[in-house]
């Protein structure tokens, strides 16, 4: 029983982080119909920024996270504005290939800059944790979880409460109409991509405090985002949160009852089943359903 | 007595909570034209989609030539010699006008297997819709009217017994409409049954044997064109109650 509770708690904490990793990916996909294969590279870049700040200037991790988010927002905005906007109207695999190229560029750029060494951002609280009977709740992960969920909720609020958020949603539903209503679609897209990159960067910085990273890990986070975005429904922020946490818990449980090597099989199994049974994602009702596929 | 070409019985379709079509019945016989009118969102396109198998009905049945084809897939319906045009016209880009038409000839009921053997039928249809001269053009190079004729040609290539037209004439000029009407009359004379969804009243009135008015997924009325046009409920459904009242008052004055 303790074992299962422990696994569940840990899975939940992991899941919150998964959600933050994936939410930007889902947003970009939902709003712009762009599958950003460089998303994992953004996550890792965020981790490196926070790590470099901590390593060279002893910047505390929380501040490092904000810095990483800010840097990536700027980078994401410019990338979309100057590059991805150029081919947004092309068939879907064009954007896929463009972002694949970006992924190669960023990941190998990081290797050239920082080598392939494994890094980790040191924190004071590191691995100490709360004890609830036999169950442990590590502070580092708890903080990461809270930050991740907080940021995801902040995004939800942003999307539903602010003018820009509404503009993003409107553009996602019908670009033509949004443009007619006077929205600067290029700017809106760029902001959307910037937000997604910023969240990825923040996620990377948090991940850097609880785990190790090196550039080669980028692909893993992209793939994970893929699974979660589909689970939650594309562009659905609540869905990403639910999908992330679900994935965290399911893999944790799977790890307890099945062979450890089956962990990945479980998540892809869930993915395929969801797609076949309920392609709009677990929470259904994606607001972009009406948009015509290019 | 032979069965009507198309018979729909009590046909319904729900989208979640929305009842797009609720228990509609109708028949169309050989060589006759059913005009299907109604305001936007009345369920006209839904009805066509249900007949051609692009949507599965929630209830009721569709009979083609007396055969129950309820819920059959579109290609099965097409093999029963049912053709249609789409409201949003999407020709097969990257192929010439000739190739666009020949696909219908290759796969339709006629089952002319190879691209080569479909060529004869293709030429026939191209002549019929007046696109022979444009046969080697790409769809992007066509005018609006030519695109509509291509859409019709693609449907005709399968030698339909039943033809369903979804706003084929929208946005066409007078002369162009007349040309299409001419073509439809000749098809009618050949015995093709036609269901035409149309907003262009002039066209619908001149060609329909019977007009069927849909409103909010239900039958509002049906009858010959003159009767239907005179029905105040139709005007009301189309133009809203206030307008109808005003026009009645105007009529009295």
């Amino acid at each position, binding site marked *: 029983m*303790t*074992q299962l509770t*422990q*696994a569940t708690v*840990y899975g939940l904490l*992991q899941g919150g982080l998964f959600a933050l990793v994936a939410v930007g990916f889902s947003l970009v996909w939902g709003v712009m119909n762009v599958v950003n294969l460089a998303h994992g590279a953004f996550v890792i870049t965020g981790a490196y920024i926070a790590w470099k700040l901590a390593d060279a200037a002893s910047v505390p991790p929380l501040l490092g996270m904000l810095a990483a988010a800010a840097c990536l927002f700027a980078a994401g905005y410019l990338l979309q504005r100057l590059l991805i906007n150029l081919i947004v109207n092309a068939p879907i695999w064009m954007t896929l290939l463009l972002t694949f190229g970006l992924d190669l560029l960023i990941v*190998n750029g990081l*290797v050239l800059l920082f*080598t*392939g*060494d*494994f*890094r*980790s951002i*040191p924190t004071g609280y*590191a*691995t*100490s*944790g709360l*004890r609830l009977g036999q169950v*442990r709740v*590590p502070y*580092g*992960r708890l903080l990461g979880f809270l930050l991740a969920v907080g940021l995801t909720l902040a995004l939800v609020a942003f999307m539903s409460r602010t003018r820009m958020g509404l503009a993003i949603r409107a553009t996602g539903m019908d670009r033509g109409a949004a443009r007619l209503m006077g929205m600067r679609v290029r700017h809106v897209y760029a902001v959307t991509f910037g937000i997604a990159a910023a969240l990825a960067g923040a996620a990377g910085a948090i991940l850097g405090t*609880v*785990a*190790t*990273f*090196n*550039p*080669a*890990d980028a692909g*893993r986070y992209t793939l994970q985002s893929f699974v979660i975005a589909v689970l939650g429904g594309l562009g659905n922020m609540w869905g990403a949160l639910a999908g992330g946490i679900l994935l965290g818990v399911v*893999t*944790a449980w*799977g*790890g*307890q009852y099945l*062979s*450890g*090597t089956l*962990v*990945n099989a479980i998540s892809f199994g869930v993915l395929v089943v969801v797609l076949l049974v309920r392609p709009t994602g677990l929470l259904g009702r994606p607001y972009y359903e009406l948009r015509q596929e290019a | 007595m032979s069965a009507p070409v198309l018979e729909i019985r009590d046909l319904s379709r729900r989208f979640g909570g929305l009842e797009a079509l609720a228990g509609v019945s109708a028949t169309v016989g050989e060589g006759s034209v059913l005009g299907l009118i109604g305001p936007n969102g009345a369920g006209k396109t839904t009805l066509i989609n249900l007949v051609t198998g692009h949507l599965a009905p929630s209830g009721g049945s569709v009979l083609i030539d007396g055969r129950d084809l309820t819920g059959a897939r579109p290609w099965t319906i097409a093999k029963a010699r049912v053709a249609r045009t789409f409201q949003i016209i999407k020709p097969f880009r990257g192929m010439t006008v000739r190739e666009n038409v020949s696909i219908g000839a290759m796969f339709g009921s006629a089952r002319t297997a190879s691209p080569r053997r479909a060529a004869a039928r293709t030429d026939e249809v191209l002549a019929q819709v007046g696109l022979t001269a444009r046969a080697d053009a790409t769809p992007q190079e066509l005018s609006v009217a030519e695109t509509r004729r291509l859409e019709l040609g693609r449907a005709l290539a399968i030698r339909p017994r039943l033809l369903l037209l979804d706003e084929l004439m929208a946005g066409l000029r007078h002369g162009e409409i007349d040309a299409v009407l001419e073509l439809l009359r000749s098809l009618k004379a050949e015995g093709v049954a036609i269901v035409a969804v149309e907003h262009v009243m002039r066209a619908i009135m001149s060609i329909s044997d019977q007009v069927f008015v849909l409103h909010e997924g239900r039958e509002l009325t049906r009858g010959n064109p003159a009767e239907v046009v005179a029905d105040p409920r139709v005007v009301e459904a189309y133009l809203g109650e206030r307008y109808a009242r005003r026009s009645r008052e105007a009529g009295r004055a």
Partner: protein
Amino acid sequence: MRWRTLSVLILAVALGAVACGTGKTSGGGATGGTLRIGAALSLTGSLAREGLLTKQGYEVCRKVINDKGGVKVGGSSLNLDIAYQDDKSEPDVAAQLVDRFNDDGVKLILGPYGSASTEAASAVVERNGQVMADSSGADDKIFTKGYKRTFAVLSPATRYASSIVRAVAELAQPKPKTVAVLTADDGFSKTAAEGGIAEAKQQGLDVIAVEPFPAHATDVSAALTKVRAKNPDLIIGSVHLEEGIAIIKQSRELGVTPSGGFGETVAPPTPDFRKTLGKQAEGVLGSSQWVPQVTGQDKWFGTAKDYVATYRQQYGQDPEYHNAEATAACLALGLAVENAGSTEPDKVRNAMASLDVPSFFGPIKFDATGKNVTKPMAVIQIQNGKVVTVWPKDAQEAPLRWPAAGA
């Protein structure tokens, strides 16, 4: 339409150009006072870190040997010239590169990084009649295929975990009774785990759990949660660096505290392990192919201590065992060429097979399958943030701290 013709023509020109461009290259293994050696390494991709370490090891070897007059072959002395190619951490590319080296007449090969790439390369080496000095492919599987041209200077995979078990069994007081084995699901780690399990049984330890997880995992919490319930005295991780760090880190998070301690293959001797884990690394046991306390010396690198000094001079930091094993492979190849008195691959191969020398890396002597069986594996422990050799006894720097955990 003409474009089809056009594209076919472009294609023809491209293929022709390539055929001509690549068809002309040639050259012997030894030309004009240099000895050309090929090395396909993981310079990009998932093993880029280890690939770079291996390259550094080869470079130290090249520099030292050339500075000391090169390799003497029948009166003349040849300078080493190592051609590096990137295999992108993909075994098929490594194999293809070895073939390309063969095209260029390069018959002497220094091994790629990792068991998978080495295995792929060794098959090609065998077919082409090349000779390969393997610096890092430890999986015993490579040596069961009857290959006669691949020689590994390092101890085989089965020794990694088993050395830790032996060290603990010999030195630990109280001697642990139960052991849990966590293993990454790749060929090398699985072979190492099997070796460890066999040794544990022989030493009378009770193996109470064997938990596999995917290779390159950074989350091993599921395996740890399972193991925690069984309360083992010793946890052995058959892993690479990232999984090794994850085991220690997440054990702390989850409160997995074996009464004895942790032992891991590969990970603990590397500086990244200590840097990343800080105090948590304290007390962890690790197996190492090489430690600076190794006895023996050779004419080029002197003793292990000398090697450390040489390496520091070139790269400004202490060598890891990955560096040392790479240098040793290069050293073995150089010695074999000298002994053969020729750069002929067959003669070098025979000289390699009969090599029996001491070196800074320990004794180098290959058995019939090409494994270096005489060299012992060392066991180290992280004590006060330093890597300290605790086993074998003749190389011991400091006694084993036991229980190792909770330092």
